[in-house]
């Protein structure tokens, strides 16, 4: 195909895509206008039904908890597949320290930010049912702590605190814990993922029953999954850098 035909093909398909996009946009509700009833219903009932103040968390870990279980396993499966594929490399399975040692300002930035990031990640996970945040967000923040430690020192320093086996065990614990919390109500004849724990006081950190528990499990799973992902990638790059 010559350049002229390619340009023509692009112009035709580009115009079609733009037309479809504009047509779809025209059908959306006006900016800032919310037509559906579900958000309004949740806003009206969730506070008294679940005793949590961050309603998105009530939706994803309780009302639609089954969907979130699938979502969590998407991450779990992706990281598992990544580890299996990258395991075929010839080099060592863990970062060896061949790559690292950044300039002093970068190392300082990583060192200064790592403590704040760790505390903030834990805060975001633990207060998921009260303020914006939750297991997914806090988990990724905690995992970015690993990147900061890598910038400040090198990858092995983090792995000395959290060995790879521990990360794998934590990931399994987080993924399995969610299912166990879902299965527990079946013992007393209630539905999968029924919120059976005491709801606690509105606005308290222990409020929300199983929401707080699932939130914590998801936080552990996401943090471990992303930390594993980063470990695998750094080991992969080191192996390539070491090659002549």
């Amino acid at each position: 195909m010559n350049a002229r035909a390619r340009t023509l093909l692009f112009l035709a398909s580009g115009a079609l895509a733009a037309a479809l996009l504009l047509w779809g946009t025209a059908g959306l509700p006006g900016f800032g206008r919310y037509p559906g009833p579900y958000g309004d219903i949740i806003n009206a009932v969730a506070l008294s039904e679940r005793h949590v103040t961050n309603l998105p968390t009530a939706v994803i870990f309780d009302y639609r908890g089954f969907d979130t279980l699938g979502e969590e396993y998407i991450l779990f499966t992706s990281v598992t597949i990544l580890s299996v594929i990258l395991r075929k490399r010839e080099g060592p399975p863990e970062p060896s320290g061949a790559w690292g040692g950044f300039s002093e300002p970068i190392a300082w930035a990583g060192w200064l930010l790592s403590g704040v990031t760790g505390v903030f990640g834990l805060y975001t996970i633990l207060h998921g049912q009260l303020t914006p945040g939750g297991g997914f967000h806090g988990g990724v923040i905690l995992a970015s702590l690993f990147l900061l430690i890598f910038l400040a020192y090198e990858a092995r320093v983090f792995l000395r605190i959290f060995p790879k086996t521990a990360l794998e065990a934590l990931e399994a614990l987080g993924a399995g814990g969610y299912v166990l919390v879902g299965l527990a109500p079946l013992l007393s004849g209630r539905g999968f993922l029924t919120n059976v724990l005491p709801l606690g006081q509105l606005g308290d950190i222990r409020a929300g029953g199983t929401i707080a528990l699932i939130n914590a499990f998801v936080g552990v799973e996401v943090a471990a999954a992303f930390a594993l992902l980063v470990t695998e990638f750094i080991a992969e790059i080191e192996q390539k850098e070491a090659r002549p």
Partner: protein
Amino acid sequence: MIVLQSLLLAFIAAGAAAVVLTRDPARQAVAMGFYGLLLTLWFLAVNAPDVAYSQLVVGSAIVPFVLLVAVSRTRKQPK
């Protein structure tokens, strides 16, 4: 609020153009991180702090990192 939102939308449009116009993939990953930061501010401006959190950590930390790893892995590949 309308002024803030319009301003942010203009910045986002400029940022998206900047990401596309950056030719070097490694620089593009960094530009993408800053673009993610703009989107974070946008989600804050439309009262979606939960989404802003996700966008901040995934869009400004994890995605640029994964892109940089991919760039480093494919560049200078022995032929």
